[in-house]
């Protein structure tokens, strides 16, 4: 059965590896999110959905650790990941709370093997990707060879993907996931160029289908298919929305499998996944 046929019938994608590299738990002030104030309940809702669609792993970060300075939320995530084995984690880093962010990160990485990297949101925290207050995070991630998921958005003062140019040159041991692939043009083109130019830069696809109108077919034609990563931005967005663009794309089954999970699996090779 083709991947598209599973989607047509709403059947779980049990025969392919699916990894969502960008998701969250928690709340956001502008929208209503189910069980947003009860992270434990939301984790159950989310992992139930992962089962329903046949997603093997989702890498999550805590909204509280991005939208507020409650960086202890990362430690709560460590506990949630013990219960929900499909969840892997990003530690959040807030540039105005450098010391505390790094202390919490160290606690997380030393106490749990479920954390795979760091998530930063330059727009929420109103600080540029390549500003000096992010430097300790980049150095920390570089020293540990971590993934760093960076929210990017075209022409935003803090998160324009062009700001990653400095980063790629300087921190070669970090794997950078370009969040939302720049979101809209011209950021999308910049993000694609970055991924094509730098070995350690990957395109995180959530939101970009929705906001740029560009389907997966376009990214496959412009970028290296080995650099494309499926993601959902749940619980902020819908996993079942984002995945449809991949499942129905007019590209080969082989490419769909890479985007859905095999590319992410390669990046997570040191973690225990099937």
């Amino acid at each position, binding site marked *: 059965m083709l991947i598209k046929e599973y*989607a*047509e019938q709403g059947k779980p994608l049990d025969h392919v590896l699916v990894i969502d590299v960008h998701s969250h738990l928690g709340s956001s002030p502008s*929208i209503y999110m189910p069980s947003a104030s009860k992270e434990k309940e939301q984790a159950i809702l989310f992992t139930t959905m992962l089962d329903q669609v046949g997603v093997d792993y989702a890498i999550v970060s805590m909204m509280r650790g991005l939208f507020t300075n409650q960086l202890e939320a990362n430690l709560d995530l460590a506990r949630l990941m013990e219960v929900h084995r499909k969840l892997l984690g990003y530690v959040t880093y807030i540039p105005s709370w450098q010391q505390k962010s790094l202390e919490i990160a160290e606690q997380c990485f030393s106490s749990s093997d479920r954390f795979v990297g760091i998530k930063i949101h330059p727009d929420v925290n109103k600080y540029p990707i390549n500003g000096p207050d992010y430097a300790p995070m980049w150095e920390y991630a570089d020293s540990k060879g971590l993934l760093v998921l960076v929210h990017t958005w075209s022409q935003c003062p803090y998160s324009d993907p062009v700001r990653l140019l400095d980063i790629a040159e300087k921190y070669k041991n970090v794997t950078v996931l370009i969040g939302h692939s720049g979101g809209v043009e011209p950021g999308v083109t910049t993000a694609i160029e970055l991924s094509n130019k730098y070995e350690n830069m990957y395109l995180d696809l959530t939101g970009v289908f*929705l906001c740029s*109108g560009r389907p997966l077919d376009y990214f496959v034609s412009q970028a290296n298919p080995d650099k494309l990563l499926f993601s959902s931005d749940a619980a902020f967005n*819908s996993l079942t929305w984002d995945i449809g663009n991949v499942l129905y794309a007019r590209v080969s089954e082989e490419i769909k499998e890479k985007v859905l999970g095999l590319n992410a699996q390669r990046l997570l090779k040191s973690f225990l996944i099937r």
Partner: protein
Amino acid sequence: MKRIDVHCVLGSSANVKLEITSEQELIDSLDYYNIEKAIVIHSMARDLDPISGNEKMLDWTRREDKLIPCFVLSPHYKYEMGWAETEKLLRKERIRFVRIYPRLHGFTLHGAHTREIFEMAAKLHIHLLIDHSEMIDAHGKDMEIFESLLKEHPAVNVILTSVSHRNNMVIYSYLENYPNFYVEFSAYANMLAYEEAVRRFGSERLLWGTDMPFRMPGSAITMLSYADISMEDKENIAYKNMEKLMEG
């Protein structure tokens, strides 16, 4: 599952490079995505001239059974042929769906033109479609006039299209308060979008749409196919609600 797409555009665009670039390609894509029928406007009616664009749309809908005509209505008709002749035209072509673009077409939701269009829609039992971007203010907030129109014209079913997922609480409020309010979820990418809406308001006023060719339909398909709601609710959303509107 059978699907009827309430939100589809024939033709291409000068503003964005699309994967689907012609009317025929769009019709062929309906097959790829198993979409039985689509309510269509022509992009020319939106981007250039409603009158000639609607004629072009009718050329296609007359020869292709999968396509259901949706007129783009604007005051251009009033000043070109008058509302009375426009009414005759809509009757003659058996038009069941009309779409308005007040912002793009130089009139306002607050003005007399919109009231006149709503009155005509009520008289002819026509359903009225509007994109969410056409009823928000400069700050991205919904204009109060939209609620007033829903309230003042209860006989007109209004179908809101291309709603951003960030507006879910506003959509809940419309569904809660106005029985003539319908919505499609092609851009409403909220976690548990259908589950939450059906649980609160039932499935009868949720429609299925794609915004093809500006969005590819895969996401709209999977958001419904993987929704944790009953098959009856899925069928309502995918085509039964639309069939009722087409008949009613």
